[in-house]
């Protein structure tokens, strides 16, 4: 029975999603309850596995054979190793809190049945990624989270921007997923297995060469899409069009870190190639800095947080690239708590201000929403890595890993500086000063459903740095050895607060103006241009094809053939008896000649 617990954990949310979709759709209260309790069930199951499983050793669920061909085998199986158990607990726990928060956040939304069905579908898919024991099953769930992300970003179907953002997220992810598929097939070609548990045993037989690098980079492509790293990062800021609980759960705490989780699963393959590891580390390193810079000039409270998410995920990616999965998972866990908290607080602000998201139109919220201000401040301290809050410990572990690559240390610490800068900017502008408009003046706290999850997450954000991470995640976090990186990174992080305080303490409007940052380094514009020119060129080619081949050759050509053969055959039907007789004779001669050739006479 114990062996089937992972299946139970996995299938509860699916059951909820399906039953809501089919039966409970017209009854929002029941749908909400079903979805929330399914998530609670998954959480309790995962927690039970986590607490009991470590005493029992690995708990492997029996796997079902799916595709069996000569030389090719793919199973649908779940695994219960410590990493999967810890991650499943984290995902279902955060998801449960977000469920609670959503009850308050979407209190008056008429289509909240649909929301909760989609949320349950997401929890199912995400737990599938976490528990999958091989790349093929993981890919199936990988696509399912893509689908739920699409559905949830576009939840407010009446907003055109939400639909556009959902499409963008889906399409950009497709690009990454294509690379991921290639990587999966390449993995089979290299190792002859899809199972994570067999990777480390088989990599010894693999010849080192460009093939290994290609496979590693293809797998990394999947991470680029799902975890929104350069150059596929453009979808994440736009995904903020979805409801805030969605941004919190999918686009900050869980789904976007699936890429990092996947990289850790395939780490034995990645480690075969130095080039792959360096590419991952440097893309991660640069992506810590770029979004942090962009966030300094954004005005939408959720987009600011979205850019900080990009930056924080990049820290994890960089850690994986440096070959230290422990700090990456450690930061993944603490980040899940504090970033989820930050988004929920931002949602509380938006809820309180009747949908206003521009920080320059808020102001003075500190007095009207003291609780939200407090948790936002705690989340900010955690995000910026101020001791002794959780983010400090996990970031320190990552910085310690950069001790031997000064370039990466420099960019990631600079990113820490700007992170502190834009977070304090956001808080000062939105919560300090005087209210800028009527909505901000009437701001109020949300109900108990919204406050309770934030309180729990705030506690976790503060304390999770002290968790016994090795037990929780099954990977030693590789403690930082109080090297120079600790003090320097701390110095950078604290220094970031100073200019922010100086510029934004009493600012009524933006005192700084960096157009390139405001336009996000023009990446979107570049894609727009590049896409339009390639699309135009492609359209010209297809138009020429259509004009010459389809219309000219096929359509008109077949007409000409029919008319010409009609003209030719019309001559035969002349009505002259003697012509018919002549043709008849010719036919006879032809037949005779044919028979004669075949030796009829002999």
């Amino acid at each position, binding site marked *: 029975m114990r062996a089937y617990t992972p299946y139970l954990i996995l299938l509860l949310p699916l059951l909820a999603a399906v039953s809501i979709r089919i039966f409970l759709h017209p009854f929002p209260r029941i749908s909400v309850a079903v979805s929330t309790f399914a998530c609670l069930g998954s959480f309790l199951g995962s927690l039970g596995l986590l607490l009991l499983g470590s005493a029992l050793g690995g708990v492997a669920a029996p796997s079902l054979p799916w595709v069996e061909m000569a030389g090719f085998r793919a199973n649908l199986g779940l695994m219960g190793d410590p990493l999967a158990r810890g991650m499943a607990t984290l995902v279902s726990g955060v998801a449960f809190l977000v469920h609670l928060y959503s009850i308050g956040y979407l209190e008056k939304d008429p289509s909240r049945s649909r929301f909760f069905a989609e949320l349950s579908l997401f929890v199912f898919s995400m737990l599938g990624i976490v528990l999958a024991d091989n790349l093929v099953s993981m890919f199936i769930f990988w696509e399912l989270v893509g689908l739920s992300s699409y559905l949830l970003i576009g939840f407010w179907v009446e907003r055109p921007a939400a639909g556009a953002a959902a499409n963008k997220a889906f399409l950009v992810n497709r690009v990454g997923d294509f690379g991921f598929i290639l990587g999966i097939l390449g993995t089979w070609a290299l190792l002859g297995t899809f199972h994570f548990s067999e990777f480390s045993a088989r990599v010894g037989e693999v010849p080192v060469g460009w093939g290994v690098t290609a496979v590693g980079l293809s797998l990394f492509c999947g991470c680029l899409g799902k975890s929104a790293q350069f150059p596929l990062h453009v979808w994440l800021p736009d995904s903020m069009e979805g409801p805030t609980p969605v941004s919190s759960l999918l686009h900050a705490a869980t789904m976007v870190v699936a890429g990092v989780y996947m990289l850790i699963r395939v780490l034995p393959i990645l480690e075969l190639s130095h080039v792959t590891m360096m590419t991952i580390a440097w893309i991660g390193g640069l992506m810590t800095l770029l979004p942090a810079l962009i966030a300094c000039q954004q005005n939408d409270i959720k987009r600011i947080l979205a850019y900080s998410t990009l930056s924080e995920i990049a820290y994890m990616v960089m850690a994986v690239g440096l070959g230290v999965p422990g700090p990456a998972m450690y930061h993944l866990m603490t980040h899940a708590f504090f970033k989820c908290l930050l988004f929920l607080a931002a949602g509380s602000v938006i809820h309180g201000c009747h949908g206003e998201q521009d920080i320059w139109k808020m102001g003075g919220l500190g007095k009207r929403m003291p609780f939200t201000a407090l948790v936002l401040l705690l989340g900010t301290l955690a995000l910026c890595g101020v001791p002794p809050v959780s983010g400090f410990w996990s970031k320190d572990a990552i910085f310690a890993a950069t001790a031997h690559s000064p370039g990466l240390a420099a960019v990631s610490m600079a990113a820490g500086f700007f992170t502190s800068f834009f977070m304090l900017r956001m808080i000062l502008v939105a919560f300090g000063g005087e209210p800028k408009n009527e909505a901000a003046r009437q701001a109020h706290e949300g109900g108990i459903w919204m406050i309770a999850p934030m309180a729990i997450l705030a506690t976790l954000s503060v304390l999770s740095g002290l968790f016994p991470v090795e037990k929780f995640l099954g990977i030693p976090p590789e403690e930082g050895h109080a090297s120079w990186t600790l003090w320097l990174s701390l110095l950078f992080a604290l220094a970031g607060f100073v200019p922010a305080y100086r510029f934004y303490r009493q600012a009524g409007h933006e005192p700084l103006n960096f157009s390139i940052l405001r336009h996000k380094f023009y990446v979107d514009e570049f894609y727009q241009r590049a896409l339009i020119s390639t699309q135009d060129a492609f359209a010209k080619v297809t138009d020429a094809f259509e004009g010459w081949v389809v219309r000219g050759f096929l359509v008109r050509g077949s007409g000409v053939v029919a008319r010409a053969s009609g003209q030719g055959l019309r001559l035969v039907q*002349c*009505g*002259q*008896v*003697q012509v018919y*007789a*002549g043709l008849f*004779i010719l036919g006879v001669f032809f037949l005779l000649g044919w028979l004669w050739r075949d030796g009829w006479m002999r």
Partner: protein
Amino acid sequence: MIFGEVTLGHYLALSSLLFLIGLAGVLLRRSLLIVMMSLELLLNAANLALVAVGRFQGLPDPQVAVFFVITVAAAEVSLGLAILVAIFRIQKTTAADQLSTLRF
């Protein structure tokens, strides 16, 4: 000696010659009357071949078949001439190349 023994080959050669003449008449002459006469020539060429083969091989069957051919030919000629007269009454011509419509 070319005019010595008369062999089956001579008969068949004559038969082929008659057949070709008849064929040319059928295909090339304009008057339907001549065309019908050429048709008779075709039949008789075939008759000649049959009789010759029957005689030289000592077989009765081809020689019997010839009687059937002659009978059928007589019937065909009478029918053909009747049609010819009917056509002439309507069209005022028996030229084959002008009779190219199926309905009058």
